């Protein structure tokens, strides 16, 4: 097993004809992901990297039975693209696009809930179940099949952490995204990892802003029996400054790294201060 994506994933790429869409379609195909269709309105009938392009998600799903979608369309259109995927019956939507207006995300997530669709992101690197499927923009070389589940608000930091799981490799790595409002939370992933027999340990990669880490810590304390490791970025971040991610901001003194580290510690989560320490810690617990 693994979570969210695997060999049964039949992927649709929304915005396949753009620079990033086309590039990552090739990378995902090379990785072995079953990319079955692409969508760019007006470009229907073309092929990109051997993948048929359709004018609409509905047409693409009808023709190819796609069951997951990854979105590369520009920020102003991403909310609508997510809704198009939901309305066409897609059950997993990974939104890579950065800079999506918060209210668009709020709306799309509200609709997704009533349709039982899972949204990952926006502003996320995607999901990879190493050796099975990559639905995202992460470099393949950082990932190895294995037993550590990684869930992270970050992109490149996730690759760094994953690369340090050493000989244990990863069952699935989920980049949930750095925006204030995202479709999939730490807790959503913790539930799935806890239930996934292939996952033996879990790493949570958090950062300043919000309190998703604190809620994740509570959940770990109550429900997670597997070893959990935690990393929090932003201990040196100044207050009231948005640190790149729209969601990474300490405001009114809350959302600090200290609070999150404290919450992790009191939930029995093993804190990692240097990414490269992860390997030995895993060795100690597994």
């Amino acid at each position, binding site marked *: 097993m693994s979570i969210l994506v695997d060999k049964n994933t039949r992927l649709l790429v929304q915005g396949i004809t753009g620079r990033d869409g086309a590039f990552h379609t090739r990378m995902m195909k090379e990785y072995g992901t079953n990319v079955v269709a692409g969508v760019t309105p007006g470009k229907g009938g073309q092929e990109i990297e051997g993948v048929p392009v359709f004018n609409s998600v509905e047409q693409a799903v009808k023709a190819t039975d796609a069951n997951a979608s990854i979105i590369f369309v520009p920020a102003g259109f991403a909310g609508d693209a997510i809704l198009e995927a939901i309305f066409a019956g897609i059950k997993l939507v990974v939104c890579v696009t950065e800079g999506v207006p918060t209210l668009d*995300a709020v709306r799309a*997530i509200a609709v997704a809930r009533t349709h039982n669709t899972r949204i990952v992101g926006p502003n996320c690197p995607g999901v990879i179940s190493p050796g099975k499927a990559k639905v995202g923009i992460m470099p393949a070389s950082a990932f190895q099949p294995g037993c550590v589940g990684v869930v992270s608000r970050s*992109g490149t*930091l996730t690759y*760094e952490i994953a690369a340090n799981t050493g000989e244990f490799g990863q069952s699935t790595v989920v980049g949930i995204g750095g925006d*204030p409002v995202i479709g999939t939370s730490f807790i959503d992933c913790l539930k799935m990892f806890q239930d996934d027999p292939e996952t033996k340990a879990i790493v949570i990669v958090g950062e300043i802003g919000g309190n998703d880490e604190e809620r994740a810590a509570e959940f770990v304390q109550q429900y997670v029996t597997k070893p959990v490791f935690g990393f929090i970025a932003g*201990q040196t971040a100044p207050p009231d400054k948005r640190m*790149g991610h729209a969601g990474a901001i300490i405001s009114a003194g809350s959302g600090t790294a200290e609070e999150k580290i404290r919450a992790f510690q009191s939930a029995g989560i093993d804190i990692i*201060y240097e990414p490269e320490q992860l390997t030995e810690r895993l060795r100690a617990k597994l």
Partner: protein
Amino acid sequence: MKIHEYQAKAIFSDTGIPVPREKLATAPPEAKKAAEEIGLPVVLKAQVLVGGRGKAGGVKKAEKLEDVESIAGQILGMNIKGLEVTKLLVSECVAIKAEFYLGITIDRARRKPVLIASAAGGVDIEEVAKKTPEKIIKIEINPLLGLLPFQARNVGMALLSEAKLATEFTSLALKLYRLFIQRDCSLVEINPLVLTGGGTLLALDAKINFDDNALFRHPENESLRDLSSEEPKEIEAKNAGLSYIKLSGNVGCIVNGAGLAMATMDLIKRFGGEPANFLDVGGSSSPEKMVTAMRIILSDPSVRVILVNIFGGITRCDDIAQGLIQAKNEADIKVPIVARLVGTNADRACALLADSPVLSATKMSEAVKLAVARAKEAE
């Protein structure tokens, strides 16, 4: 994006939310003239984009006309949390029967807008929420329905008891919500919302923050931006598609990804150094962005070393290497550069940098230690 109280009140006024009579002044005589027009007493309020101006002495009442100029003179030019006061709001002094808090923001955990109200107005709402959470009314708003009249009315009844005032509150709250949605706000806040001596509701203060991600569809907001309150280098970076924040250390860093950039800063500190900045070159990199990043970092005279930490994904390492070479060609860079480039096209990047004086490392810890050591040597 934050805007000033006087700007937020102009927007409130356009939306039909009642605000006091008031005028903006940038010099003491102007303040005096404003006070004459408005009628005494008046309240003079510093317009700065930080909280806590009251405690800092930035809000004062003037009873007599002759006091207005002198108080205005005290406030204008004042430095509040690092920002100079250049604008002053001269506001009518309103008789207050009761003060409330009313705000709308996005609840990250619930992933929807929430309306927050409290009978404890005029004070720090975060404090109230922490110490006496029972004094806070929080209404979840279904984003597909918006704030419903009955929800607003129920809050109004809870705060004001009287049906007539609850109706007035409902209308005000619905307008505030419409504004929140139509202008893509991340926060709208009235603190305090007051019940005046005359028995009507009035927004005595106003705060509006816009969602940065949605600014592209609100060109009308650009004219509201107060560039004087922003770090010029941060503006330059943003215009180049970079995310840059100046810090006080001497290890400049260029990283791709906000999380990795923060982790790099944290590791510099952990290994005994001090980061000079946060800099995320962003997802789609290009050699030009690297050149700009280098220029911005090098304009900080404290910087003794540049640490480039890239884990390629969307970002391609060869673009980064290309940019480094270009930057070195365009300017005479004196400080050492430590580069750690892994991930997409790392091999090509390696080949490009083979003959350059850039110091290479493959592990993040190694690169950070090297940079910290070089910075110490250079001091």
